[in-house]
């Protein structure tokens, strides 16, 4: 089991380190950089939206879905306050009440 864990560690570290390796002979051009500037919102959104809309039975668009109403409140608070603490507290608070 330790062998598997060590090999997994090598793989995750490899995926994180590869493009920070100086000997890789390429430079990220301005167009590529602009493309990559969208990676943070793209990946983070691709992670959180399915948490809200997907459950074991598939896509849940029901308004009774507590994930959905709590997410909408979190979005409003995030938009108004730009504050991660207020957003998380408001979203989690409503979610815990509804759930």
């Amino acid at each position, binding site marked *: *089991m330790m062998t598997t864990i060590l090999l997994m560690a090598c793989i*995750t570290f490899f*995926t994180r380190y590869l*493009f920070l390796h100086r000997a890789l002979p390429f430079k*990220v051009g301005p167009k590529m950089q602009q493309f990559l500037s*969208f990676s943070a919102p793209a*990946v983070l959104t691709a992670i959180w939206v399915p948490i809200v809309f997907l459950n074991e039975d598939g896509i849940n668009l029901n308004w009774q879905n507590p994930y959905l109403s709590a997410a909408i409140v979190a979005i409003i608070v995030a938009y108004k306050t730009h504050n991660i603490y207020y957003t998380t507290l408001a*979203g989690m608070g409503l979610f815990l009440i509804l759930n």
Partner: protein
Amino acid sequence: MQPVKKAILKGFLDMLPLCLAVVPWGILCGSLAIQNGFSAFETQAMSLLVFAGSAQLVAIELMAGNTPLLTILFTTFIISSRHFLYGLAVRHKVIDQPMRWRLPVSFVLTDELFAFSHHRKAYRTKTRLIYALSAGFSFYIAWNIWTLIGIVAGTMLPDLTNLGLDFAIAATFIALVIPGIKNLASLVTVIVAGVSATLLKSTGFELWLVCSALLAMAAGYSTARLTAKKEATP
């Protein structure tokens, strides 16, 4: 306060909500492994060395099911492949730093740390490197403490992710993404990412995360180019 201390404190405080949001996942990583016959040492070693929540959870289930080693490693690679994007995106900021900075930065380059990496000057000054390492390693320490709690108390605690506490990570990511929507291009990125990730994941497609992210980035990039062209030709 000294700039170094200030950077350490700011990194810690910025990451704190995310450290707390992954409590359910960290505990699950610990308890699930123990329930599936991992020793406490192996379980903690996984969080210490692999340090990748989603890959760990999937691998625990696969290893418990006696899945062939190559399948486990391939799955780990697929789940981790989004890190290539992160490395590419921060390459021009970090690449001039010596190895002793790049190595630890890449070790803690998680989704969470990447979320704090978009500043133009990120990783470019010593203070900002210290800030990033403080944020990254406080997340590392937190992740390992939650794993340890899962190892020790796992069987006594209910599965917190089934209680819906997985919403915490959604709430923190909303807080990180929404304030960054400043123009049409970023709005398009977020909408395409959300819709395509939900659809692709619901079909059980294994590359859903990387594919939806690339699709959304392409949509955002094209929108930015188109709006720039329109402004240039009145």
